[in-house]
């Protein structure tokens, strides 16, 4: 009925119009097909527009189009990657056209510091990754979008903890402090990635080398990741809706003995058979919903998005609930001469961390022990009305089910970002930009260990922790850009000023002894210890305003799009450094020649050679290192017989502390071959980082403390990176595109402490294996001349003595116990492996066939080794240890080894290749009247298989070390980048994820 009505209306209108305007408007229909001049295939999605009007259409999947045009019409055909073409329609009713591919048009825009550049103008090593190329599947962290996609960027996460972030490393180890790249979100330096939903990201640009990053000076040493969020476009309002459901299952856990094997090996038989892992794990279910409304006019554009994520981990109780909202509005005025924009985003995340310790104890807890023990005869706690869980007196071993059921460990984090920016075209070619941003993060965590919880709680008759910390960040920047064309020379200059203030403060309280478990950590005032002295531990802190002032400038020369030159300088000061060394200069210069403009090389469409040099810096991790500080000691003293507080000093101040610095030389080649079907880039680089800000032992006879932050050391990293993109097949309905990125680097510790180059390494910078029984046992050593993350230790001979103690090989080839003075001297120690991979690979393949799309992504790391802590602690057949812990069983297990002693035997090669992701999607055909413009359904799998010889849970490289915890202790929250390569016992296990999702656009 409606159809008929519309038809009548249209008919009448046409008749009327024809009657009225037939003298000057003769509307008619033109149809035709658009094909590619390369292979004659039809080009879908080509814009066909009647020139000078808003009238237009888009070619269908075969390249066919149909459009009604007026008289004297000219049609404009445009398509990304092809030269636009205009055709005067004249009297034709059929227009078939071949579009010629255009290499230069492929040039995309790359976001660089304080502006954008066309890719062809870029002289540094910068890579732009658009949302189409992002990682797929269940992605909850923006860093994961990049994993394996950019040569030289290592993104790693061990295990499937839904509340654990990714470790990101760009081109090896460049600093001993915070080694993650600087994140810049929509121009805001140092903004939090936690406040950006992966769904809202349009592109991520990585500035890899020093010449590209130098404009960011401080903190640019580890590279820069520029995140651009999705913005509104002029035109009809669009609504995108994406939703998916992901299911996590444990892909691998530690192989341990069954109950029967355990009893046979000498374990105590408590008569049950308990699958502890099953008891503490679950199928993790993640639900994600994302909606975005965007649109606008030529002068006003907007984008509003809301993201909801509810994630469940493989460990019972673990998960999070996150709500994020983002608003971006852009307004132009005075004929677009003034452009203003405002961004707002906020995230609230509630996390339940649960207890990763439960996974560890699930592997080593006695498999014959029952979960519950209600018999008061065996369980004294039950008799006194306490815990009915099975517990025994073991060192560092707790009933894992009790851990997660009795205790609470959760937190809430709120992040707000607000930024505004105004751009003004002051004079022809001169643009001024001012921006101001703020970020507030607030996190509250609480944990409670129940009165009868053998794990942490019972010692204190209930124990509660409550912590709150907040960080505050403000950024003000002003800069100007001047563009001028002088004949064939295109010149661009940028200069500006940046001022940053950041501060933090926090409050924490820990108290025990509660009457009841009912209130958890919510009423710590009821702690009976509050009234007593000595057990109450309060912790609050407030950082100073850490300030950074920077002046920066950049000049870009472009001669005939063939010779390119860029130079920048940042002069930057930080309040955290010594008074006389606060300012540092970070210069860069880089150039490029587009060789393909100078020579015609057969089958080479584009060839550009880039060379760059740049200096960047890194800041101290904390404030106050240059000042003498007094702290109140936890120990008091006597004044006569009166107890008085005591003030002491912990670290020696270093008033000469200066910037950590890095210089880097990069040479690269960008190329396009075979009609640009094959494009790629090759980069080689060498970076020298020096003056690390490290806490080191100093001569205690002349300093107020035995440790001081000093500028020390020199790490040299050399690397090579290759990225290839090949549009292998584009025939008819079928396309196949394949992308390969590979990188290799080596970070060598050239020197650490000047004046001493010890060959046996310095344990003070290493990482200890930990308890039980392997404190003071350091598997990673930092030795001048060796790579960072050198696994260094005694070499196991394969033989044991009569006690079952492993015999190590001494320098003269004789066999000795690890406790022998000759071995203890570390002189016979050998390099047993390297914690950092020597080669990393990512291989993406995308196929489309009609309405189907298929994508798989293989990722690998090669050449690294891991210290397998699980084996080192629990594989040996020590008769006493068997009583306390279940045994790890691998192909290396030997019944004659009775001692847990670190040696070469526990270092394994951990090279791997994994099917990181495979996704298959289907675009549902939509009728002409459908309100939807896109309707895609997909299924995706993450971590589908792993090929590795490593016997542990996850062969992923450990880029840093977070130490171990023992007997209810806590692991460190900050990683040590100088001790990579240890597979600790404190990680979640690996999960395999299946995701089912829908993308809708209205």
């Amino acid at each position, binding site marked *: 009925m409606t159809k008929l009505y519309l038809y009548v209306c249209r008919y009448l209108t046409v008749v009327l119009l024809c009657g009225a305007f037939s003298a000057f408007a003769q509307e008619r229909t033109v149809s035709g097909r658009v094909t590619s001049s390369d292979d004659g295939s039809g080009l879908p999605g080509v814009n066909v527009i009647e020139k000078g009007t808003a009238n237009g259409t888009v070619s269908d999947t075969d390249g066919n189009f149909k459009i009604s045009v007026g008289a004297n019409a000219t049609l404009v055909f445009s398509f990304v990657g092809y030269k636009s073409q205009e055709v005067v329609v004249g009297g034709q009713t059929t227009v078939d056209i071949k579009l010629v591919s255009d290499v230069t048009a492929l040039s995309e825009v790359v976001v660089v510091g304080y502006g954008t550049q066309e890719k062809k103008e870029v002289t540094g090593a910068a890579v732009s990754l658009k949302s189409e190329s992002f990682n797929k599947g269940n992605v909850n962290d923006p860093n994961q979008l990049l994993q394996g996609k950019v040569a030289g960027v290592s993104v790693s996460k061990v295990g499937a903890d839904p509340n654990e972030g990714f470790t990101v490393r760009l081109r090896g180890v460049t600093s001993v402090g915070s080694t993650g790249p600087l994140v810049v979100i929509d121009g805001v330096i140092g903004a939090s990635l936690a406040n950006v939903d992966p769904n809202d990201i349009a592109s991520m640009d990585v500035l890899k080398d020093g010449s590209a990053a130098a404009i960011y000076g401080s903190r640019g040493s580890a590279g820069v990741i520029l995140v651009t969020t999705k913005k509104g476009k002029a035109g009809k309002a669009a609504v995108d809706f994406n939703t998916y459901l992901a299911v996590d299952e444990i892909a691998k856990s530690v192989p341990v003995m069954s109950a029967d094997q355990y009893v046979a090996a000498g374990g105590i038989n408590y008569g049950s058979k308990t699958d502890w892992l099953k008891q503490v794990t679950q199928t993790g279910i993640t639900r994600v919903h994302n909606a975005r409304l965007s649109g606008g006019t030529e002068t006003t554009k907007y984008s509003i998005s809301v993201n909801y994520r509810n994630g469940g981990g493989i460990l019972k109780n673990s998960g999070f609930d996150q709500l994020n909202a983002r608003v971006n509005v852009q307004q132009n005025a005075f004929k677009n001469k003034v452009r203003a924009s405002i961004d707002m985003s906020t995230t609230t995340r509630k996390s339940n961390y649960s207890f990763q310790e439960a996974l560890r104890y699930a592997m080593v807890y006695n498999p014959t022990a029952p979960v519950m023990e209600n018999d008061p005869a065996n369980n004294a706690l039950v008799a006194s009305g306490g815990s009915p869980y099975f517990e025994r007196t073991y060192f560092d071993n707790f009933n894992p089910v009790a851990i997660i059921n009795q205790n609470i460990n959760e937190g809430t984090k709120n992040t707000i970002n607000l930024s505004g920016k105004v751009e003004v075209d002051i004079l022809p070619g001169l643009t001024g930009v001012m921006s101001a941003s703020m970020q507030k993060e607030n996190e509250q965590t609480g944990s409670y260990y129940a009165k009868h919880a053998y794990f942490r709680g019972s010692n204190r008759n209930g124990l509660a922790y409550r912590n709150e910390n907040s960080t505050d960040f403000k950024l003000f920047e002003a800069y100007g850009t001047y563009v001028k064309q002088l004949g064939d020379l295109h010149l661009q200059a940028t200069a500006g000023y940046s001022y940053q203030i950041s501060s933090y403060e926090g409050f924490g309280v820990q108290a025990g002894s509660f009457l009841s478990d009912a209130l958890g950590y919510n009423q710590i005032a009821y702690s009976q210890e509050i009234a007593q002295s000595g057990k109450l531990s309060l912790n609050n802190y407030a950082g*100073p305003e850490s300030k950074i002032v920077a002046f920066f400038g950049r000049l870009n020369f472009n001669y005939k799009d063939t010779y390119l030159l860029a130079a920048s300088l940042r002069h930057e000061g930080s309040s955290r450094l010594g008074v006389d060394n606060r300012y540092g200069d970070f210069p860069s210069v880089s150039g490029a020649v587009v060789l393909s403009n100078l020579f015609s090389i057969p089958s080479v469409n584009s060839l550009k050679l880039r060379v760059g040099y740049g200096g960047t810096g890194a800041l101290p991790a904390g404030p106050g290192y240059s000042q003498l500080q007094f702290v109140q000691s936890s120990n*008091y003293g*006597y004044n006569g017989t009166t107890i008085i507080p*005591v003030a002491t000093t912990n670290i020696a101040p270093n008033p000469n502390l200066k910037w950590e610095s890095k210089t880097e030389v990069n040479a690269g080649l960008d190329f396009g071959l075979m009609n640009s079907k094959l494009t790629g880039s090759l980069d080689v680089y060498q970076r020298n980082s020096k003056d690390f800000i490290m806490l080191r*032992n100093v001569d205690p006879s002349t300093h107020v403390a035995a440790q001081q932050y000093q500028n020390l050391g020199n790490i040299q990293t050399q690397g090579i990176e290759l990225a290839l993109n090949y549009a292998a097949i584009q025939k008819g309905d079928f396309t196949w595109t394949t992308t390969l990125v590979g990188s290799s680097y080596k970070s060598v510790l050239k020197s650490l402490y000047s004046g001493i180059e010890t060959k046996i390494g310095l344990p003070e910078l290493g990482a200890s294996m930990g308890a039980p*029984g392997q404190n003071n046992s350091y598997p990673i050593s930092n030795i001048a001349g060796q790579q960072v993350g050198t696994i260094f230790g005694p070499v196991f001979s394969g033989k044991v003595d009569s006690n079952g103690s492993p015999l190590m090989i001494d320098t003269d080839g004789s066999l000795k116990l690890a*406790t022998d003075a000759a071995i*203890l001297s570390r002189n016979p120690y050998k390099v047993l492996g390297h914690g950092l991979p020597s080669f990393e690979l990512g291989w993406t393949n995308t196929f489309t066939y009609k309405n189907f799309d298929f994508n798989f992504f293989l990722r690998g790391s090669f050449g690294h080794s891991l210290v397998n802590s699980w084996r080192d602690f629990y594989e040996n057949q020590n008769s006493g240890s068997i009583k306390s812990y279940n045994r790890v069983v691998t192909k290396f297990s030997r019944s004659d080894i009775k001692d847990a002693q670190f040696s070469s035997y526990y270092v394994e090669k951990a090279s791997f290749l994994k099917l990181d992701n495979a996704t298959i999607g289907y675009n549902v055909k939509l009728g002409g009247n459908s309100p939807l413009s896109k309707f895609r359904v997909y299924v995706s799998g993450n971590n589908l298989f792993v090929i590795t010889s490593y016997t542990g849970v996850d062969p992923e490289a450990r880029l840093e070390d977070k130490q171990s915890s023992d007997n209810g202790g806590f692991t460190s929250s900050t990683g040590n980048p100088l001790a990579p390569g240890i597979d600790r016992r404190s990680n979640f296990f690996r999960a395999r994820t299946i995701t089912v999702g829908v993308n809708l656009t209205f």
Partner: protein
Amino acid sequence: MKSIKIKLFSMLCTGLVFASCTNLDENLKDTWTTKNFLKTPEEQSAALVGAYSPMFSWYNHGSYFTLQEVSTDEAMIPQRGGDWYDGGQPAGYHTHSYTPNFDFVSGLYNQAFAGVSAVNRLLATPGFDGAQVVAELKVLRAYYYWILMDNYGSVPLSTVFGESQGQKSRADLYAFIDSELTANLPVLKQNLPATATGTYSRVNYYVGQAIAAKLYLNAKVYTGTAQWDKTIAACDEIINSGLYSLEANYASAFSPTNNNSTENIWVIPYDHAYGQGFNLDQMTLHYGSQQTYQLQQQPWNGYCSLEDFYNSYDPSDTRRANNFVVGPQYAYGTTNQIQDSGAEPTDPDGPGLNFTPHVNELAPNCLRQAGARLGKYAFAIGATPNMDNDAPIYRYADILLTKAEALFNKNGYTDASGLALVNKVHKRTGLADFTTMDATTLLAERGRELAFESWRRNDLIRFGHFGDAWFGKAADPDGHRALYPIPLSAITAAASTGTPLTQNPGY
């Protein structure tokens, strides 16, 4: 040229924006600095007492106590199967296999020097120039140097904050300590304490005399020349003061409430709240002992004594019951023996927790329940890892035995007044008096009386027995182990300063 450019650039930008935004002063909010601290007498007192702070580490696992006891025939940290291998280090102290990279070797070194530099910093700070304060600090510094000289031999000497005189020989350090005591004790004598605990845990005249007594007692080891008369004179200053006396009951000198003991000349004033760091309950007791003493934390099952040392006590010596925990262990207030699920199948008395003086081996498979535990400092019921017992540094009984030893060495072991002093201390053991004395008996009696008071290494070296063989250890007669190595961390730290350190012989 560059600086002009930068200047112009800066001016331009600053003009563009606002001038106040280039101030980079750092104002710390949660810590004291020289800008906001040391202004009041209370703050100055707090800083003064800070010079004593390093001593709180003495009785941690891995500091002074460990180095003085575990390297001797009194105590050890056996490797108990999967526990306490720790890179071979704990057992390595006992077998004299320590090397410059052993962790505890640097711990004591750094803590003692932290004391030295704290004193030097205070002496250079306005407000710390009163005669009594200066003398107290200098004698305290002399004590820290005595620790360094006794354990490491030759170390750098620093008397002015931030300045080092370079590494000095042991004899030079002896002379320095001697001269500091000689110069400053007369000043301290002008302000004598009214009672034994009158300047509790602080350096006073008698503490200084005790430092001197120990310095002179070991003078032959340090310099090659004995100083028996000076030893006797220093002891007499303390004895004749009349402030100190022996407790009637040996145990009361070490109990959780020993802070009033008249036997204490100088202590580390440990407390579960105000003076944390005395962790012996954790270090020595078994995991299951948590139930016996209702401890706040599960102990670590590490340190124990040697069977021969335990047996060196007469069974009726009252000190034996005080100094060790042996036998079956029961849950607090019950007769239920604690069950140790982790007991080895080879443990002859099964899973019931029982501390046997007999230890099967030092490493690798010492039974988890083996060994008499170090019970000298009685464990309070419900204790935290931080015990309340004050740890004596100088105890009156030691001063009496020290004087006796000097008399014997000066006059021969027939010296009657020396024997009387030994018997004065021995009386409360419930045993008969000694009628004769010789070096072997005196060393053994010192061991029994001063067990686990961190004197055993010092005594064994002085009596020439530190290189003997004992349980778990072969003889190491060459003698270089009597000095600990200069820690690797100190060697590396000094290497870049232009005044490198020379390692002790044999390392």
